[in-house]
């Protein structure tokens, strides 16, 4: 998808200076998710598990969007999402996982997600997340 096409899908995205946090223990997925976000002009950081995500927020950082993997060592996506919501964090959290059975998806959603997408992420799926979470400036 070219920058022009992306700009049509999400007007004013370039001006919105969105920030995102990628939470995933896989280097392959970290690289892909960061590239997807870069392509859409979204500044981003990456951490490798749920505990690091919580620590980053405890240190005072904040992000508009979190892309949260489910299966991670030390603290998984469900635990991290619950913890962040308990802390009062209102960032939009999109669960991204290969686990697709309804029970697991439900459990993840109930932890406090705003949206859920099956991996692997693509430009269309990321745009779908951004649309769903109303990430564009209303004119």
């Amino acid at each position, binding site marked *: *998808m070219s920058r022009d096409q992306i700009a049509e899908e999400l007007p004013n995205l370039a001006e919105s200076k969105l920030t995102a946090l990628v939470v995933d*223990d*896989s*280097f*392959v*997925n970290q*690289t*892909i998710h960061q*590239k*997807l976000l*870069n*392509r859409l002009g979204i500044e981003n950081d990456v951490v490798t598990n749920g505990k690091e995500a919580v620590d980053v927020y405890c240190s005072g950082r904040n992000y508009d969007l979190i892309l949260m993997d489910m*299966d991670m060592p030390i603290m998984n996506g469900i635990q991290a999402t619950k913890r962040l919501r308990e802390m009062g964090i209102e960032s939009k959290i999109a669960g991204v996982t*290969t686990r697709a059975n309804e029970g697991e998806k439900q459990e993840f959603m109930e932890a406090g997600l705003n949206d859920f997408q099956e*991996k*692997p992420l*693509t*430009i269309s799926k990321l745009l779908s997340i951004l649309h769903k979470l109303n990430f564009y400036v209303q004119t």
Partner: protein
Amino acid sequence: MDTLIAQLQRQFRDYTISLYHQGFLDDQFTELKKLQDECSPDFVAEVVTLFFEDCEKLISNMARALDQTGNVDFKLVGSSVHQLKGSSSSVGAKRVKGLCITLKECCDTQNYEGCVRCLQQVDIEYKTLKAKLQDLFNLEQQIVQAGGRIPQVDI
């Protein structure tokens, strides 16, 4: 008469198509190619390199676990194959992903022989894919060195 560039481009096109048709790659590989641009001209090569590093590490972990005959930690094997399935899915490594699904099933039923056989197949399959992608990247290099552009291949 075809120029060298045209010949290389045709070879590249045919080889790419064959990798999809033979089931080595799927749509997700196409998605990775879409992300490659002037800012990151080696993006696909970088991601697949990370994937092959994953393969080596996780297959080695699983082999070690399966070596503990009589005391195999199937949970460890299961979590390693889940990770490998995830990264193979993310790069479009279709055959590797399919074998990971089968290996997971063997693991879930604690089918030891099945796990050993399947793991051997995963090992062969990722090495085969690695060699084929190396050939593909070599073709790309040859095209660029000859002064040509890498053609867009519609699958």
